[in-house]
């Protein structure tokens, strides 16, 4: 068998050296992508810091820093094993991985690094939803729980070759298609977003966010420059997130390049649409809304970036901007306070993104990326609805799994009075009360305000 393979390689012009180059190039591509996705941590940190009030800056920064640190340890010891762990000869199951804890018997280092960066992204999303009022121990708890267990299980379902939702196995796929979530609109963003939603609901709104008459009191973030910086870094990082999810460049260059274009167009359309919505409704050229629109577009296209046509990415971004706008309004109606709009952005747009694949996946691309059957195209592209069905099942199951577990987790913390800081601390700001002083110490001599 080995000889035949070698012979085939010779016949196709491939030498052993070429195979090495291919392997190394793919490895290099995956590593570079992992670096970009890791850099998104910096983006999240800046976005979050700029979007909260200055008195809570340090609090949110340290959460973002620790999501990378604690996340790496948790994912190293437990998470990766639950997500992808398999041992030769050991039985596997569809629900959860069960080997490679602490990376024993494991050498795909680049693969681990890439997956770790993803897990850190999922965990970080939550800190935006519960910002400015959550106790630090509660954060440490949910962050560890999410990275070590809840998120890896979702990964196992969808991306591991043994998972019950996966498209990456030969038979027994759900509706004969499996769920197509290329880079994780559902696996990463919805998971983070739903966890954030649970957190925001159970922690309750920031003091003073809703007036007695139900009016929403604006609590603008303290630094728009940081928000833009964060958005740009995230956008750059997304070029690791989406194109990198092909995991290889040699032989996959068509998918990778197309994915980069789709990602760009959806982000762009999201931003432009958000600008138009906000100018149309409020006559304000709203910077923060445009940034959120860009991110909504990115989240929306994350599932479908490799299997939809570039022009549909523009429609995807357009709808995503409406989804985040609508979901944000809905949360405010329900008096759920999500300072970063993380649940609308990652939860709602993530769910939409998964759904979008079921509508718009093109059969040629599906065959190219997933070796999927013709019927597994989107319903607008001649599919018979099997894919859409799988996508809907996936969304519902992720919602129930994450919402259920994190809901219980946050409720338990609430029962134990460990979830929320005291009103006094909240009023003073978490930096002063919990983190040893303000994030900013400007002793600049500024002219006295001339008008107040």
């Amino acid at each position, binding site marked *: 068998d080995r000889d035949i393979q070698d012979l085939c390689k010779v016949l196709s*012009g491939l030498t052993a050296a070429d195979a090495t180059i291919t392997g190394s190039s793919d490895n290099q591509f995956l590593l570079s992508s992992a670096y970009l996705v890791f850099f998104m941590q910096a983006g999240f940190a800046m976005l979050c810091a700029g979007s909260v009030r200055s008195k809570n800056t340090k609090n949110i920064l340290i959460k973002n820093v620790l999501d990378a640190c604690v996340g790496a340890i948790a994912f190293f010891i437990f998470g990766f094993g639950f997500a992808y762990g398999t041992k030769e000869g050991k039985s596997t199951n569809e629900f959860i991985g069960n080997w490679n804890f602490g990376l024993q018997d494991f050498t795909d280092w680049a693969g681990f690094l890439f997956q770790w960066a993803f897990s850190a992204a999922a965990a970080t999303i939550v800190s935006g939803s519960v910002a400015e009022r959550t106790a630090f121990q509660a954060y440490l708890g949910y962050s560890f729980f999410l990275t070590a267990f809840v998120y890896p299980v979702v990964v196992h379902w969808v991306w591991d070759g043994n998972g019950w939702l996966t498209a990456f196995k030969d038979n027994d796929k759900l509706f004969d298609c499996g769920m197509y979530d290329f880079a994780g609109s559902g696996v990463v963003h919805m998971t983070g977003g739903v966890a954030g939603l649970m957190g925001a609901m159970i922690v309750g709104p920031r003091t003073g966010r809703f007036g007695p008459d139900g009016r929403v009191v604006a609590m603008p973030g303290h630094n728009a420059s940081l928000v833009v910086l964060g958005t740009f*870094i995230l956008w750059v990082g997304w070029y690791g997130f989406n194109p990198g999810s092909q995991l290889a460049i040699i032989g996959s260059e068509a998918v990778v390049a197309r994915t980069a274009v789709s990602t760009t167009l959806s982000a762009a359309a999201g931003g432009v649409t958000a600008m138009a919505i906000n100018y149309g409704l409020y006559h304000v050229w709203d910077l923060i809304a445009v940034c959120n629109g860009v991110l909504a577009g990115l989240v929306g296209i994350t599932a479908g970036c490799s299997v939809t046509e*570039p022009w549909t990415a523009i429609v995807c971004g357009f709808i995503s901007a409406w989804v985040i706008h609508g979901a944000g309004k809905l949360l405010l109606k329900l008096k759920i306070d999500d300072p970063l709009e993380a649940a609308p952005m990652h939860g709602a747009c993530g769910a939409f993104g998964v759904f979008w694949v079921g509508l718009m996946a093109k059969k040629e691309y599906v065959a190219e990326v997933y070796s999927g059957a013709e019927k597994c195209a989107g319903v607008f592209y001649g599919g018979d609805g099997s894919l859409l069905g799988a996508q809907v099942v996936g969304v519902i199951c992720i919602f129930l799994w994450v919402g259920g577990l994190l809901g219980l987790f946050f409720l338990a913390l609430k029962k134990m009075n460990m979830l929320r800081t005291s009103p006094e601390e909240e009023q003073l700001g978490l930096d002063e009360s919990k983190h040893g002083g303000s994030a900013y110490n400007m002793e600049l001599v500024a002219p006295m305000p001339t008008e107040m």
Partner: protein
Amino acid sequence: MADLTTKEIQENLDILWLLIGAYLVFFMQCGFALLEAGSVRAKNTKNILLKNVLDACLGAFIWWFMGFPIALGDSSGKFAGGKDFFMMDLTKELTNNPTYFATWMFQWAFAATAATIVSGAVAERCKFVAYLVYTTALTAFIYPVVVHWAWSSEGWLSAWVSEDEKPFLKANGFMDFAGSGVVHMTGGAAALMGSIFLGPRTGRFTPAGSVVDMPGHSTVLAALGTFILWFGWYGFNPVSTLAFEYMGDAARVAVTTTLAAATGGCTTLAIHVALKNPPDVFPALNGILAGLVSITGPCPVVEPWAAAFIGFVGGFVYYGSSTLLKKLQIDDPLDAAPVHFFCGIWGVLSVGLFAEKSYTKSVYGKDEDSYGAFMGGGGKQLGNQIIGVLAIIGWVCFTCSIVFGSLKALKLLRVSAEDEEVGLDSSHHGGDAYNFEAGRGKTVS
């Protein structure tokens, strides 16, 4: 996975190379946004940030349906291209062309750069609607036409004609490797026209003609932005080799880029200090950018020592033109025209002066006897460079005066004096960019 031939592997690596370049150049948008934000007053921060974000967003949209097809869509026109509008012709086909997508990404990032340069020059007083109009005009038509001239295989200035043809301009055509002229001069010329038509910010010049200092609100953001730009320039210049096979050239380009940036920064700071000013950060930052813009055109065809010299002169060009504009009472808050327009011109011309014979041959290779005048190559190439400079200036200044002129006539160009005084963030963008809590986080007197 299918086994690939060596040739296929090479093609795939071309795509990888282009994509890495595109990501790096796109990141320059972040650099521009922060540099510009840090260099304006705090009350106009959101305004300029929004423009930079939209240059990427709106830019991608326009580049998709119109810009790229005009710039590099096949045609037989020397003036402008015209194919694949909306990427339609491509996506009809079953097998997509990955090279098309990768090139589109790379060129989109360049287009966004050209558009963003303008927002610095018109900062703090330009209406948002005017911004939307000029950025659309620039990305959809003005800039793509210049790209077609210089970089398509058909343009009348192009050095990149197919192998068996001669460039229309003779010799090696117009040699502008990564766009000192195509990108920076275009953006810079548009910026200059914008700031002339807009007039200076209120209070910038006293009636007696002296300049009132209006310092940017954050040196940190400006420094961060400059570092990101420098970082992104390693996509801009080295990746303009476009193909993996020229990786050796790319390495040399990275070195020349670095040296020009370094000497540009040191020179400008030295000039500033020599003129009895304290060693401020902004001159060093703008000097770095001046060096980078200057080397963008000549980067693959000059020796490292020449690159250092080009950056050195670039520092003088920047400092001199910045002083000149102030003398002429043209108010360019970001010094966008001195950095991008004047240093862009210098960069294009320096190709005609310093291009090395062997490098010119390996990179362009149409006419062996035509290279830098100072290196013994005669004046032919310098002549081509001058033609290119004049053509780009003529085209961009003409079209931009129409755009800015009509905006001005329609009273859509400039915000009211009250709005300018209050700041654009409060008057147009729903509130300030910064909201620090009272009495916390700082001890101000």
